C-alpha cells in the first residue's frame, strides 16, 4: 500500500472516530444533565419528606408549600398547561393563560396533597434515559417502589431557560398530558377557555369539600 494512501486512510478513520466520540458525548451530556437534575430534585424532595412531620397535614402546612416550591422547580407548569390544552392554547389571552395555570396548579395541589401523608420511604431509581434526534428532549426511565411493586414512571424533560424541566409524566405508559388533553379537548369543544378555567376552579373546591367531609367522618 502506498504511503499516501495509508495516511489518507488513517486520517479519515481518525476523523470518523473523533466525530463518533463527539456525537456520543453530546447526547450523553444531555441525558446525564437531565438525569442529574431529576435526581437532585428527587433527593431534595425525599429529604424534605423524611425530615417533616407528616401527621395532621393541612393544605396550608409549611411542608406542603415547601414541597410545592420544590416540585414547581423541576416541573414546568408553562409547558404542562400549554401541552394539555394543545392547539387551542393560542386562542387563550395572556390573562387566561395565567389564570389557567394558577387554577391548574391549585387543582393539582388539592388532589395530590393528601397523597403526601401516605409517604413511607418509597424510593425512586433512575434506570436510564433516551433522547430525541436533536438532543433537545430526554425521557428518563425510573422505577418507583410502591407497596412491594415496582411502578415504571417515565419523566419527559426538555431544556427551559437553560434548566432541564419535566413536561410530562408517564405512569405505566399512561401520559398525564395526553390524559388531561383529551378531557380539556372535550370541555373546550363546546365551551370557552373561561368556562374551562371555571371548571378547574370548581373541581378544586369540590375536592377540598370532599376532603373536609372525609376528615370530619374520621373524627
Amino acid at each position, binding site marked *: 500500500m502506498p504511503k499516501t494512501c*495509508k495516511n489518507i*486512510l*488513517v486520517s479519515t*478513520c481518525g476523523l470518523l*472516530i473523533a466525530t*463518533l*466520540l463527539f*456525537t*456520543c458525548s453530546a*447526547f*450523553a451530556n444531555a*441525558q446525564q444533565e437531565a438525569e442529574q437534575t431529576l435526581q437532585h430534585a428527587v433527593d431534595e424532595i425525599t429529604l424534605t419528606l423524611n425530615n417533616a412531620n407528616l401527621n395532621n397535614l393541612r393544605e396550608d402546612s409549611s411542608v406542603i408549600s415547601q414541597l410545592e416550591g420544590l416540585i414547581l422547580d423541576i416541573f414546568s407548569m408553562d409547558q404542562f398547561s*400549554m*401541552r394539555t390544552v*394543545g*392547539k387551542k*392554547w*393560542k386562542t387563550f389571552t395572556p390573562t387566561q393563560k395565567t389564570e389557567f395555570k394558577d387554577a391548574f396548579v391549585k*387543582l*393539582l395541589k388539592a*388532589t*395530590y396533597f393528601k397523597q403526601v401523608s401516605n409517604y413511607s420511604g418509597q424510593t425512586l431509581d433512575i*434506570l*436510564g*434515559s*433516551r*433522547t*430525541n*434526534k*436533536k438532543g*433537545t*428532549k430526554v*425521557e428518563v*426511565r*425510573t*422505577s418507583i417502589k410502591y407497596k*412491594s*411493586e*415496582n411502578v*415504571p414512571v*417515565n419523566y*419527559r424533560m426538555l431544556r427551559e431557560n437553560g434548566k432541564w424541566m419535566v413536561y410530562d409524566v*408517564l405512569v*405505566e*405508559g*399512561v*401520559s398525564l398530558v*395526553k*390524559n*388531561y*388533553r*383529551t*378531557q380539556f*379537548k*372535550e*370541555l373546550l369543544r363546546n365551551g370557552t377557555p373561561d368556562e374551562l378555567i371555571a*371548571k*378547574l376552579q370548581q*373541581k378544586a373546591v369540590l*375536592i377540598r369539600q370532599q376532603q373536609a367531609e372525609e376528615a370530619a367522618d374520621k373524627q
Partner: protein
Amino acid sequence: MRHGFWLILALLFFSAQPVFADGEIPLAMTKDTSVTAPAGSLLYSSTPLIAENDVQYTEGDEPFIEDDDYFEDSEDYFDDSEYEAENEAVTVSDPFEGWNRMWFAVNDWIYIDVGKPAHAAYRIVVPSFARTGINNVVVNWFGMPRRFVNAILQGKLALAGIEMSRFIVNTAFGFGGLIDLAKDLKPVIPHTGEREDFGQTLGTWGIPAGPYLVLPFFGASNFRDTAGLVGESFLPPSLNPVYLNYVLFAGSQFNMLDKRIGVYENIVSTAVEPYIGLRNAYSQLRKAQIEN
C-alpha cells in the same frame, strides 16, 4: 496491516460505547426513528405511540399541523403530534357513549359506595397476610397457565420461561404458591412484572381495539379486550362444576378490591372530566401493555 487491525478494533470499540453508557443502543443515533427500543427494558420505556389504524378525523378537525412554535420538531419520536393523533383516535371510537356513561355511573356507585365499605369490613376479618396468600395461590395456579400461554402466543418465549420457573419455585418451595418466593429471588432475567392476557395477544396479532365499552362490574374495556376476557375463561384450569370458576373469580377479585379501587380512585379523582379521563387512561394503558 497491523494498523488496519487496530483501527477496526478502535472503531468497533468506540461505536459500541453508547451501549456501555446506559445499557441500550441510543435511538437518537440511528436515522430510522421507527425502530423501537430493544427488548427487555421495554416495560420502562414508552415506545412511540403511533396512531392506530382506525384514526378518523371528525367534524372538520384536521390532523395536527406542525407549524406551531410549541410543537416544532415533528420528526422526533416523542413529539406532540402523536399526542394529538392518539386523542383523535380515542375520541372517535366511542359510539356507545350513552350506554358507557350509564354503566360508568353505576360502576362508580358499586366501587365507591358498596365495594369500598364492604372491603373495609373484610379487611378487619381477614388479615393482610391471609389476603396476600389467597391472592398468591390464585395468581399461581389459575393465573400462571393463562399468562404462560399468552406469552407464547405473543412470541415472548423468555417471559414464558420466567412464568414457568416462577411457578415451579413458588409451587415447590412456597407451600404450593401460598408465598411468592420467586419475587425476592434475584433471577438471571429480571421479571418486570408484566402480565400477558388474551386481549393483549389479540392486540399483538393486529386486531384493533374496537369501540370503547364499559362493562358492568368489570369497568373499562373495549370490544377486543372483552373478547379476550371471554376467550380466556375457556382456558384451563377449570373447576368442576363450572359455576365454581365464577365464584373463585369473583372471590379473588373481591379479595384484592382495595388495590383496584385505589387505581380507579387515583384516575377518577385527579380528572376534571372523569369519564373521559378513565377512557383515555384505559386506552393508553392497554396500548403500552400491548407494545411492550
